[in-house]
């Protein structure tokens, strides 16, 4: 994009009624092509582990006593840190096409993140003290390092100095204490409260301005991982709901003065005071949310956007053939999942569940639903690609399926009803699976219900229904879906030993023992659980040739932010 064009955009944006932008820098790797950077090969991710000490920003305090590198930048970020400080330089704008429409309920307040667009915007303007890297391993961010006592009940986080909020206020420990206390406050009613087991408001203290101590009522050796849930982005002490919803008030790389929910295009401005040297790489980041699939494709082909966050499967081959466009992918993506409630007949019989699992033809499912691009899964929404993940994929075996079906008491087949809605990829996913099960004598009818009210009316109440999950860390996922008291325990899994194993895995620092326990729990779900997960579809993004320095991320709700 030319200089004048960019200035034009800026001018126009400022002059036209609904835009007001502020600055910010990208935590994750952002860059736009035309600044003379040589085009890097678009990284197909999961490659290098992201923790490289060389790439670490010059921190103000030396990190001490820790096994964890002070900070991370991602692969691309490490390679190009030179372009920032030159005096007069052309303004750069990255136009980022997002694959879902914004809604007027979008908010910048991390306590109330409910949609993927919320997640996207919040990733730009605010930050966590700990974040997940590409392999879903917790990595220091606004915290420089942490220490735990021997039992994993008391965690001390040493915070980064020299970080400021968008309003100029320095970031200190009191902000961290306030952020977490706010999440736990029943009057705030944040969906994030449930993700902090064992943390009580008075368990948070700030011995000095750059130290936060969290005391837990139950041990958790992976507490840093637990606090990477998407609601824990740090807000300044005292900030109210009204302060946070529609203006950026974080420490993030980008900022915006007046955020207007539901706009198609939202322009974020670089945060001039951002703490990570070299970031953000662009002056303006324009997020263009495009709900219509045809328009999305036309936009990347024409160059109305530089990047398209997610390419519809049907168009992937076409875009790959386009010489102006590159496809960038990350195998860790999202999963459509069927669940059954294992305490409700006929699903209370594990032989039936096993019959369904054996009848599922994973390679064929990937071929027919995802053009052969999906990762084969093993009936648990946790892939083997992540830390502590077990993986594997049950062999398709119709004989075994029929045998288990007979043992369950249905030698002549069984009729089931799967509740779904016409949303996500279920319209293809479900019929393909239906055909596969039919071969084993499992006749599944599809009960199609209204999409608007699916999550409220059907999900969690229908005994056999569709659901969908982004990839979580193993510990988070096991706790979220299978703990007997979990709010989202859709399969009604309730096993005292399982709960005890989960607690034990959270209480031991012995990595081998933790791996053993996590694998044992996953194996138990694979063999007896009520989830049916044939495949996981990765993130496929598209970028115009010449755009470099960013990549799609598999991390829950921080996907893909330039």
């Amino acid at each position: 994009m030319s200089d004048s064009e960019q200035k034009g955009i800026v001018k126009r944006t400022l002059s036209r009624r609904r835009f007001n932008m502020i600055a910010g820098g990208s935590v994750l790797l952002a860059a736009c092509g035309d600044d003379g950077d040589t085009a890097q090969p678009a990284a197909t991710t999961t490659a290098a582990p992201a923790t490289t000490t060389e790439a670490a920003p010059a921190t103000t305090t030396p990190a001490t006593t820790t096994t964890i590198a002070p900070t991370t930048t991602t692969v691309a970020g490490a390679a190009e840190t030179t372009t920032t400080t030159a005096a007069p330089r052309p303004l750069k704008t990255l136009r980022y096409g997002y694959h879902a429409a914004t809604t007027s309920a979008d908010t910048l307040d991390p306590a109330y993140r409910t949609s993927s667009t919320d997640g996207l915007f919040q990733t730009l303007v605010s930050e966590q003290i700990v974040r997940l890297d590409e392999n879903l391993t917790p990595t220091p961010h606004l915290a420089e390092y942490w220490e735990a006592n021997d039992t994993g009940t008391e965690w001390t986080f040493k915070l980064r100095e020299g970080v400021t909020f968008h309003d100029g206020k320095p970031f200190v420990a009191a902000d961290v204490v306030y952020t977490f206390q706010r999440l736990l406050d029943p009057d705030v009613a944040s969906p994030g409260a449930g993700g902090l087991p064992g943390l009580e408001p008075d368990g948070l203290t700030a011995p000095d301005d750059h130290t936060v101590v969290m005391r837990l009522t139950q041990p958790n050796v992976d507490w840093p991982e637990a606090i990477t849930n998407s609601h824990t982005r740090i807000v300044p002490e005292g900030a109210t709901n009204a302060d946070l919803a529609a203006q950026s008030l974080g420490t993030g790389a980008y900022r915006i003065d007046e955020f207007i929910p539901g706009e198609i295009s939202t322009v974020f401005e670089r945060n001039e005071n951002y703490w990570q040297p070299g970031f953000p790489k662009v002056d303006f980041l324009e997020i263009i949310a495009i709900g219509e699939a045809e328009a999305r494709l036309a936009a990347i082909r024409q160059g109305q956007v530089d990047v398209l966050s997610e390419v519809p499967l049907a168009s992937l081959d076409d875009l790959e053939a386009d010489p102006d466009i590159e496809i960038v992918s990350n195998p860790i993506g999202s999963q459509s999942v069927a669940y059954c409630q294992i305490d409700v007949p006929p699903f209370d019989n594990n032989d039936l569940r096993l019959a369904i699992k054996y009848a599922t033809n994973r390679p064929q499912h990937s071929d027919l639903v995802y053009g052969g691009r999906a990762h084969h899964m093993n009936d648990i929404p946790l892939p083997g690609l992540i830390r502590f993940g077990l993986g594997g994929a049950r062999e398709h075996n119709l004989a075994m399926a029929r045998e288990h079906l007979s043992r369950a008491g249905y030698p002549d087949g069984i009729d089931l009803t799967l509740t779904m809605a016409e949303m996500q990829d279920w319209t293809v996913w479900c019929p393909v699976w239906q055909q596969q099960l039919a071969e084993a004598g499992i006749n599944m009818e599809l009960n199609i219900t209204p999409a608007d009210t699916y999550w409220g009316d059907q999900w969690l109440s229908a005994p056999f229904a569709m659901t969908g999950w982004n990839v979580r860390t193993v510990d988070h996922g096991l706790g979220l879906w299978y703990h007997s008291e979990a709010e989202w325990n859709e399969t009604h899994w309730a096993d005292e030993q399982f709960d005890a194993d989960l607690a034990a895995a959270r209480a031991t620092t012995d990595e081998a023992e933790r791996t053993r326990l996590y694998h044992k729990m996953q194996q138990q779900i694979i063999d007896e659980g009520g989830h049916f997960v044939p495949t996981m579809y990765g993130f496929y993004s598209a970028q115009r040739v010449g755009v470099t320095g960013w990549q799609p991320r598999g991390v829950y709700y921080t996907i893909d932010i330039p």
Partner: protein
Amino acid sequence: MHFVRVTGQRTALAVIALFAVSLITFWAVELLPGDAATRMLGREATPERVAHFQEQMNLDAPALQRYTNWITGFVQGDWGESLVQARPPTEGAPAGRINRSVTDIIVPRLTNTLELAALALIMYVPLSLVTGIVTAVYRDRAFAAGLSTLLILGCAVPDFVIAIFLLIIFAVALEWFPALSLVDQAETFGAQLRMMTLPAVTLTAAMTGFAVRQMQASLLSVLNSDYVQFATLKGLPRRRVMLLHALPNALGPALRATVINVVWLVGGVVLVEVVFTYPGIGLLLLDALRLLDTPVILASTMILAGVYVLCNLGADLVAAALNPRLRTG
């Protein structure tokens, strides 16, 4: 005087109709499953959170009371605040949730939609006039028959299909026009016009077919009428017969068709805005419906219904003014 009485009656009826629209819309939204709180929370909707949100949105008040509050404000020009859309705090504002006013939300979107509708009408009027005359006058020629077929096709193909075809051909394949109609970001008037072209053409295509068919039929009957035959026999030039004698008498049905078209535009614009990602009131209404944001739904519906009612009222009054039989009731 009769005319004054008719005007008064019709206006009163229009007001009653609008009132009925507001009542029906409000209760229809009430009947839909869920409310703004559950829609906003989605998967995170636990009973406690829903209750908390409902209290903040004042959704815990009885429906009748909420409707009465809304209509009282509405008639005084206060269209209320969105239930879901937040805005930054202003100096000295109280803590707690503050939302954008419906007026602030709607005005920019409505402006965009009106601009689009205006462009569509600017293209539509001369296009349908010329095509109507040409196809009627040269009805025996092959090209006129071809044109008529094309118009019937235009009527028959749903507008969203036309929209997607135009998008694929002119935006993706030929790259003549942008795929996203981001008119708020357009830097020049020319750029904005280019962004509006495809949506406007879609609307025009759907409207023109209908209007031309109407006009063609009435022109044909007028052309066969005695006075036109007589004018022709008298030796008047063909153009003069056409423009001075036939056309004025054939315009009535075309005007009625235009009123129907404008009324259709109100709904057609919603679909077209979705396909072309055009930031108008249609896209806004769709979003508000998904979230059950009642004040925005009500305001948008009242505006769209208002256009409908006003067009019909205007047509009625013009007809009454022109037609002695209707005028005397």
